[in-house]
């Protein structure tokens, strides 16, 4: 199972999906586009565990984290 984690006022909301299921994968890609289109930043973790920002939906990513864009405080 793969997961998309979206930071929100509740802490986060998690969407699990089976990357082998074409429909689920399509929904995950749509969610990715919707969130990044709304200004969220998507991050995945590399094999070594370091974070990396991604601007394209990665079918192979087991975990994608979305957080709102940053602004000066």
């Amino acid at each position, binding site marked *: 199972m793969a997961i998309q*984690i979206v*930071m*929100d*006022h*509740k*802490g*986060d909301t998690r969407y699990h999906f089976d990357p082998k299921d074409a429909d689920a994968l399509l929904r995950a890609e749509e969610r990715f586009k919707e969130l990044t289109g709304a*200004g969220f*930043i998507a*991050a995945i*973790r590399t094999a070594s*565990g*370091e*974070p*990396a*920002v991604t601007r394209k939906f990665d079918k192979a990513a087991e975990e994608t*984290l979305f*957080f*709102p*864009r*940053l*602004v*000066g*405080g």
Partner: protein
Amino acid sequence: MFEKLARITNSHLQRLLLDASRRARGFRNWYWESTCANESEVRGLRLLKEWLSPEQLAQFETHKYFDVTGCHSGKRYRLRYGTGMNVCELDHAGRPLAGWCFVPKDGLVPGDVVLAQKIALETDELAAMAVAKHFVVRRPGTVA
């Protein structure tokens, strides 16, 4: 004979102290997490811990802050658990040099804020610093 006995006792004592210190840290972390304001804050804290490197996690468990290295400049920043004015640039000796404030646009719990700041500094430091606002930090030993 006495030397051997002293060595054994010393080794046992060290193990005992190490174990007690580990338990105390575990209890402190449990207490700290259990006093978090609500479930949202606990979720944010859990997510943050999932994304920290082992070194950052160990530092965070002990001090409630951790250091990150900016991906472009190589500068070190100290991120304290909080929702604003919690990023401190460090000098080569690890002393606070300048404060920087940048936060996710939407209001988030502290764990999420700190995690977003960590990822930003480690993956796109220049973009983070382009929006960050500077604030003065008091160096230890100076009068405000």
